[in-house]
């Protein structure tokens, strides 16, 4: 039962679409995710053998406790009307953060799920079908996710499962081609960068036979360099990204230690936009469009350090255990989330994989 819930959250939640909330795509997914995480927690709670603090790494427990304390402080001193539940478009407030943290811990206690090799391929094919028939603004595909870049992030997470679960070369190549096709339909540039970095990781590891540590380091450096791309394209799509990042940086600098409070990012960015007097004043911004900046704006240096600590623990444990699939997924997700706001689907995937780095080897 617990495995089915994790599978639902990781692979089937993306198909949840119900006609209520501000976005029929995102809001029902958030409710479903919160409910599923809570049920998962209860089921794990009943299995007494699995609940033990000794199974987690001390660094993970310290980081999580620090994050929890920070959110409590935010609720006491920096509470606004959107702190706890987030704004009505994404519902990414403190409550969701707690639930995601709970998901990280509970899912990390469970054994790896075993699925038919067809399952992931079918999921990717269904998403490809929906990418063809459901379009968003203009001609960009949104699939059942509701936003083109979020769709690309989902695909970046999904295709490595097919690649690593199948030994047939045809399926491996097919999964990559299908993923590229969906990303092209979504016209997500960040998705293209993410899959390129994932493929670069493959090339370095399997063709050049580099160690996982070196390959990961090179891909992370590539990721950092890819963040410069928006600055070279001032006239086009990226223009907004650089302005949003500048505003976010300013918003973060105003409260550098403890941040502006989790869930309050919209207000923090709005205040920063007013100071900056840029074109963003015309739009409503509720995300830094970069997950690192999101954590910095909301949690300050303390929050960002906690997030980097989660990432460091995940990367080190994956390198030590030679978990190539997890490394590929984590790299892809990080690249994708470095340019876009996180959807609930991407957050679930990210916290699941971060949870894998929380348990002792």
């Amino acid at each position, binding site marked *: 039962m617990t495995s089915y819930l994790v599978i639902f959250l990781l692979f089937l939640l993306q198909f949840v679409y119900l006609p*209520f*909330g*501000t*976005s*029929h*795509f*995102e*809001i029902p997914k958030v*409710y479903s995710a*919160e*409910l599923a995480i*809570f049920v998962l927690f*209860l089921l794990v*709670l*009943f299995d007494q053998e699995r609940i033990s603090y000794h199974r987690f790494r001390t660094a993970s427990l310290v980081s999580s406790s620090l994050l929890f304390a920070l959110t409590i402080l935010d609720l006491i001193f920096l509470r606004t009307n959107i702190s706890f*539940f987030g*704004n*009505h*478009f*994404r*519902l990414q407030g403190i*409550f969701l953060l707690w639930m995601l943290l709970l998901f990280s811990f509970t899912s990390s206690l469970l054994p790896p799920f075993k699925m038919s090799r067809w399952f992931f391929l079918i999921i990717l094919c269904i998403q490809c079908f929906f990418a063809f028939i459901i379009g*968003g*603004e*203009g001609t960009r595909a*949104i699939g059942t*996710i*509701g*936003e083109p*870049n*979020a769709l690309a992030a989902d695909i970046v997470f999904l295709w490595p499962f097919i690649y690593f679960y199948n030994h047939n070369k045809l399926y491996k190549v097919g999964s990559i081609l299908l993923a590229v096709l969906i990303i092209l339909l979504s016209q997500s540039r960040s998705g293209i960068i993410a899959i390129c970095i994932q493929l670069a990781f493959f090339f370095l590891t399997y063709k050049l036979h580099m160690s996982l540590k070196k390959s990961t380091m090179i891909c992370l450096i590539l990721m950092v360099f890819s963040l410069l791309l928006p600055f070279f394209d001032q006239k086009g799509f990226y223009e*907004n990204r650089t302005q*949003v990042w500048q505003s976010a940086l300013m918003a973060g600098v105003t409260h550098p230690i403890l941040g502006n409070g989790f869930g309050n990012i*919209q207000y923090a960015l709005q205040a920063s936009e007013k100071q900056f007097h840029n074109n*963003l004043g015309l*739009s*409503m*911004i*509720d*995300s830094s*469009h970069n997950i690192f900046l999101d954590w910095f704006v909301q949690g300050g240096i303390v929050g960002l350090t906690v997030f980097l600590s989660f990432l460091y623990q995940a990367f080190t444990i994956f390198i030590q255990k030679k978990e190539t699939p997890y490394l590929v997924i984590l790299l892809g997700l990080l690249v994708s989330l470095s340019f*876009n*706001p996180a*959807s609930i689907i991407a957050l679930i995937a990210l916290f699941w994989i971060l949870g894998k780095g929380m348990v002792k080897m």
Partner: protein
Amino acid sequence: MRRKNIAVLCLTLLFAVVLGTQIAATANAETENGQPLTSPVTYFTISGNVRYQFLRIFGLGKKEQPAEGVNVTAVDKFHHVSYETQTDSNGNYTITTQVGGLFIVSPSGGESTFYTPPFAVVHANHPGQRTNVNFKGFVLP
């Protein structure tokens, strides 16, 4: 075991209250500033009715009737995307569009060549709906 059951019951109750509050808060959400940048797609519904107005000679014949099968088009002037539907047997229509656009809604086809108003402007700056976007088509005897 009993203690565990009580804990689970309390947690479930607490979670139900929090989730219920969240759903209620979202249901009553007022979005004043429009849709955020790069947010998930949100929908806006435009609905109304189209009727035929017959120009009668000596007051004979029908005065009005629902206009069935009239094409109603909503064109987003910002993003150059159009949505089209047809009226039903009662002359009613509903168009579901995406939020964040200035829509020019206009009827065409059917038995009339002149509709009043010729178009309606609908500003979909937040999720929700705009009802009673009605049109009348004049039909000569």
